[in-house]
């Protein structure tokens, strides 16, 4: 196969677009996809400081790499989740990426706040991924607001969005569907804009970009991800994609064009202010504070039982 752009031998084939690219043209293509998504969805401008949530995985590091190349003002935010060697390695890779490029990086270790994900999951008996999601949402919002960033960019890709859409549709989660957009505007003064510049790029494309750019990302999968529902949805969608290339892109794109505007018109209750931390909340306490209080209560009970 020849490169669709320059006719050199192709190093990557993209079945969903029925095209192939050599290394240089693929890098150009990927960067253009991200650039167009940012411009078309009005995610942020060159004047704005962007907080990039970086896990050490292929998507977030690829995103950060593209944003730097496009000239955006970025700072990385890495949460060390406390998931043993996996988190240690993720932090090492993220720091190495930032140091090699002279980038500004904020690192927060959840264990320092007594909130390592495995401990919270064990104490509250919640799925680790659920606890992890609550932590990430809270820290991303709080750090962005406290440090004056108007926007947080995450590395969610097309496959993430398609899997999330499938899950939301299977359960007809109307409020979740109404919020599933590449740009989420703040609905509270302690929320910031959240954007997903990779929402049109497949997981394969971001992995290829990271490989071509020589980005040393963590290849290992999170040990808590085994059996996660999102992976089941991804597998189903990839089976569909194998038979009908372009299905994932059409699923997400058509949802955003045709269904999402109607859903957005649905009234979503505006968040209140959490009595615990002052962040937005849909009850007296936000999900993060409820989780923290439950963790502390169970930790005390466990310690009391150990002393008895």
């Amino acid at each position, binding site marked *: 196969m020849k490169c669709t752009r320059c006719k050199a031998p192709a190093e990557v084939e993209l079945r969903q677009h029925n095209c192939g690219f050599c*290394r240089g043209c693929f890098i150009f293509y990927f960067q253009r996809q991200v650039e167009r998504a940012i411009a078309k969805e009005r995610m942020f401008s060159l004047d704005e400081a962007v907080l990039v949530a970086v896990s050490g995985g292929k998507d977030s590091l690829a995103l950060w790499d593209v944003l730097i190349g496009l000239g955006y003002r970025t700072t990385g935010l890495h949460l060390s989740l406390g998931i043993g060697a996996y988190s240690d390695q993720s932090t090492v890779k993220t720091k190495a990426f930032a140091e090699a490029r002279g980038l500004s990086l904020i690192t927060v270790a959840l264990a320092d706040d007594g909130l390592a994900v495995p401990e919270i999951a064990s104490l509250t008996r919640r799925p680790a991924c659920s606890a992890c999601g609550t932590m990430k949402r809270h820290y991303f919002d709080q750090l962005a607001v406290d440090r004056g960033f108007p926007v947080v960019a995450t590395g969610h890709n097309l496959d993430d969005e398609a899997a999330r859409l499938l899950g939301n549709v299977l359960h007809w989660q109307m409020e979740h569907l109404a919020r599933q957009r590449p740009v989420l505007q703040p609905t509270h003064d302690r929320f910031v804009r959240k954007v997903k510049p990779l929402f049109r790029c497949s997981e394969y494309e971001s992995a290829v970009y990271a490989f071509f750019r020589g980005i040393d990302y963590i290849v290992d*999968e999170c040990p*808590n991800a085994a059996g996660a529902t999102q992976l089941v949805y*991804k597998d189903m969608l*990839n089976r569909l*994609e194998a038979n009908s290339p372009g299905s994932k892109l059409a699923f997400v794109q058509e949802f955003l064009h045709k269904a999402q505007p109607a859903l957005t018109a649905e009234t979503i209750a505006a968040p209140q202010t959490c009595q615990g931390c002052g962040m937005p909340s849909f009850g007296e306490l936000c999900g993060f504070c409820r989780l923290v209080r439950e963790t502390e209560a169970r930790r005390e009970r466990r310690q009391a039982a150990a002393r008895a």
Partner: protein
Amino acid sequence: MGAFTAWLPSPILANPMHVTVLPQRKQLEITGRRRAADVLRELGFLPGTAMVIRGDELVPEGSMLEADDVVEIRSVISGGR
């Protein structure tokens, strides 16, 4: 017959293809040249869910892998929840 087969590439005598599957770190050997897509299928990967890497180059799924290649199959699927 014996003299004739000595001229043919023998799957038994040839070096096998060395394959490392990531992130599982699984090592295996495959005999004979074949398309990258076929290797992926034999290992249970759907199209577009893993990269086939030979040295520092990415091998398109439609391209051939030689019998004595050393390749890495790196899954691109990640996620939780």
